[in-house]
C-alpha cells in the first residue's frame, strides 16, 4: 500500500518578508533548501504562504506556451500568474497561493519575484533590475537593463564589498530611509547575495564608456531611468500608482547619478 506524501515546509525570508513554501515533494524541498539556503529562517512569522504542487510539465494547467512571456492578471480577487513552466493563483486577502509546476527552481523563483513585488508595492518598496553592494556599511545600487554591466560591476567589486545581488535589488522604505536587502536572485554571476541589509547611499545608472566618471542626473530623467528598471508585473491602477509614487520618492530622497565606467576595478575607487 502506498502512503500519501506528507507536506513539509520551508520558510524563506527575503527582504524581511518571510514566505512559507509547503510541498509534499522531498525532491523539491531539497531544491528549495539548496537554492535559498542563506535565506531560510524557520523562526520567522510568514507573511505569505505557498502550496506547491509538483506535477509533470504536461499537467501544468496553463494556457501559455513555452515561448511566451509571463502573464500576470487579477481575476475575481486572485492574482493568476502563468508561464510555460508554471501556473499560480494567489489570494492577496488570505495571503495564500498555490503553484503547479515541475520540480525545478525557476518557476518558484519567478513566483517569489512577483509576490515580493506585489507585497512591496503596498509598502513603498521596489524590486529593481540592479546589482547592489554594501561597502563601509552603506549600500550602492547599480541599475541597468540587460547588458548594462550589473554583473561586470559586481564581479569587479573589491574584497571589502559585500554583494547583495548582481541582478535584482530589493529596496524597502523604512522609517529612517531606504534600505537595500540581499536577495537570492542571481544573474550571470550565478551567486546568491548575502542575506544582509544596509542603508542605501546612492543609486547609479550604469553606462559603459571610455573613462570612469560620475555625472549628476535630473530628477525627471532619474525617474524615467528607474522606472525602466523597476520590476513590476501587475496592471492594477492602485498598485501601479503605488510603484510610481515609490519611484518618485526614491529619486527625490536618494542621490541618483550616472556611473560611466570602463570594465576594470578602478571604477570602485569612485564608490566609497
Amino acid at each position: 500500500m502506498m502512503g500519501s506524501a506528507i507536506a513539509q515546509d520551508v520558510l524563506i525570508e527575503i527582504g524581511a518578508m518571510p514566505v512559507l513554501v509547503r510541498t509534499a515533494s522531498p525532491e523539491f524541498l531539497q531544491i528549495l533548501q539548496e537554492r535559498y539556503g542563506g535565506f531560510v529562517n524557520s523562526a520567522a512569522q510568514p507573511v505569505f504562504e505557498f502550496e506547491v504542487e509538483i506535477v509533470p510539465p504536461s499537467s501544468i494547467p496553463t494556457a501559455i506556451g513555452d515561448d511566451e512571456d509571463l502573464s500576470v492578471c487579477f481575476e475575481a480577487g486572485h492574482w493568476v500568474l502563468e508561464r510555460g513552466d508554471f501556473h499560480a493563483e494567489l489570494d492577496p486577502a488570505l495571503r495564500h497561493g498555490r503553484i503547479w509546476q515541475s520540480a525545478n527552481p525557476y518557476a518558484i523563483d519567478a513566483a517569489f519575484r512577483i509576490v515580493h513585488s506585489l507585497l512591496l508595492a503596498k509598502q513603498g518598496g521596489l524590486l529593481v533590475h540592479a546589482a547592489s553592494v554594501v561597502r563601509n556599511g552603506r549600500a550602492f545600487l547599480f541599475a541597468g537593463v540587460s547588458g548594462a554591466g550589473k554583473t561586470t560591476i559586481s564581479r569587479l567589486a573589491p574584497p571589502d564589498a559585500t554583494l547583495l545581488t548582481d541582478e535584482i535589488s530589493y529596496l524597502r522604505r523604512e522609517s529612517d530611509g531606504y534600505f537595500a536587502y540581499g536577495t537570492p536572485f542571481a544573474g550571470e554571476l550565478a551567486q546568491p547575495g548575502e542575506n544582509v541589509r544596509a542603508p542605501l547611499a546612492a543609486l547609479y545608472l550604469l553606462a559603459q564608456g571610455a573613462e570612469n566618471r560620475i555625472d549628476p542626473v535630473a530628477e525627471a530623467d532619474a525617474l524615467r531611468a528607474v522606472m525602466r528598471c523597476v520590476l513590476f508585473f501587475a496592471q492594477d491602477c492602485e498598485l501601479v500608482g503605488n510603484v510610481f509614487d515609490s519611484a518618485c520618492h526614491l529619486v527625490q530622497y536618494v542621490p541618483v547619478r550616472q556611473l560611466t565606467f570602463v570594465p576594470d576595478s578602478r571604477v570602485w575607487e569612485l564608490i566609497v
Partner: protein
Amino acid sequence: MSPMYIARTREVAARLLGGEMMIMSARDSTLFNLNETATAIWQAADGVTPLTEIVERSVCANFEVDPVAALRDAEELVEGLAKHGILKVSNQPIAEEK
C-alpha cells in the same frame, strides 16, 4: 463647432517632479512627461470647463503664445493623450469618475 470637454482618467498616476509633470499609465505602464503648457492643460482638465476656456485661462494668460496656435496645439495634445487613455474627451461635460 461643439465645445470639447476634457477630464483626467483615474487609470494614471501623475506627479510633478523637477518642474515636469510625469504621468504613468496604469493600463500599459507607459511613462509620459508634459511640458509647462501641457501641464497647465492637464491640471485644468476638470471635465466641465471647455477646452477653449482652459486654453484662454491656463495657457494664453500665462504664456506668450498665439491664441489660435495655442488652441490648435492643445487639441493635438488632447487627442494624443486621449489615445493613450490619459485623458477623456467628450463634447458634453464629463461626470467625475467614482
